[in-house]
């Protein structure tokens, strides 16, 4: 006899449950967590280096560094005097909540106020996996072309803010900043956008202020709550 079994189970259910646990843990500790997502080479690590430089005197920062095989990025960041944990996915195209849960065990959470999770360089899969962060921030660099928002809408729809990096290259490319902003607005009208160059420092201030603001919001919430 033939039998139909109704399952109705999301495939990412296990991840969603672990992400919730991560989020509870981080919220209880009053930590603001930012999940940085971009294509390879958009400048995530340089942006992090410059952001840490600007913020390390304001509060302590932790880093979960996702990479497929290497530890180059965490070595670059370790020199900055922040608590960094490396996750190697060995071929995996994204970080998941389980990997982040393990990384959190190795971080001094009682000392950290702001935690960055640098996802594996990829605009596709990381958008789908909740890690337990407060905010997803997508980075789009000028050298990638202004058509990327329409090609990878989910990541921009999920993001709280978008960094338009490498604006120092604008004169040398046909990247149209106005078009890119317009396309991003079509996907999510209330996206916060930060056109900047992590390399020259131009535009960094607005991004750093936004982070400070988010950290003080979390502090207020954990003080009242």
């Amino acid at each position, binding site marked *: *006899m*033939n*039998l*139909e*079994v*109704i*399952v*109705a*189970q*999301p*495939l*990412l259910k*296990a991840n969603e449950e672990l992400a919730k646990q991560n989020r509870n843990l981080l919220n209880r500790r009053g930590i603001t967590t930012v999940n940085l997502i971009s294509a390879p080479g958009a400048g995530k690590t340089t942006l992090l280096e410059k952001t840490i430089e600007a913020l390390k005197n304001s509060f302590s920062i932790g880093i979960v560094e996702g990479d497929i095989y290497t530890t180059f990025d965490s070595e670059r960041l370790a020199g900055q005097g922040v608590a960094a944990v490396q996750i190697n996915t060995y071929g*995996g*195209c*994204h970080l998941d909540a389980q990997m982040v849960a393990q990384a959190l065990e190795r971080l001094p959470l009682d000392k950290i106020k702001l935690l960055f999770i640098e996802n594996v360089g*990829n605009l*596709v*899969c990381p*958008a*789908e996996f909740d890690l337990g962060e407060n905010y997803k921030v997508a980075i789009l660099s000028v050298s990638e072309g202004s058509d990327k928002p*329409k090609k990878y*809408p*989910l990541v921009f*729809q999920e993001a709280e803010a978008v960094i338009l990096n490498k604006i120092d290259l604008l004169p040398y490319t046909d990247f149209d900043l106005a078009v890119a902003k317009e396309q991003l*607005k*079509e*996907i*999510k*009208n*209330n996206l916060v956008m930060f056109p900047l160059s992590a390399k020259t420092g131009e535009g960094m201030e607005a991004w750093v202020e936004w982070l400070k603001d988010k950290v003080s919001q979390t502090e207020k919430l954990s003080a009242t709550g």
Partner: protein
Amino acid sequence: MHETALMAEVLKIVQQSALENNLPKVTKIKLAVGKLSMALPKALIFAFQVLKKETVCEEAELEIESKEIVLQCLDCTREFRPQDYHFSCPFCTSSQVKIIQGRELHIISFEGEENELGSNCGSTLVKSQ
């Protein structure tokens, strides 16, 4: 890009449920895949063909129900299908929208054949779990 991992999860869930429901042979698996999910149906089918070998799903067919993107405007409450990833309300231009369909990535159901023993009825039975 991670369709193989997703399909491995599908097969794990279905095999476990088939065992619990005493179904030694799975004949069909139905998935819902939203247009906004990052899983490509073609890659899912390819992964299925490779991974189902030597499992209770070896002879099963895969049916993928593709789900269009449907949004609901949080201001005027109307529902609409966005054109060209334009995520604001075409009625009142509000950008406060909620995705109500299109992010699906789940198993709807599966079908299997029960053990010969004690089954002399040829009808299809729907069972919830």
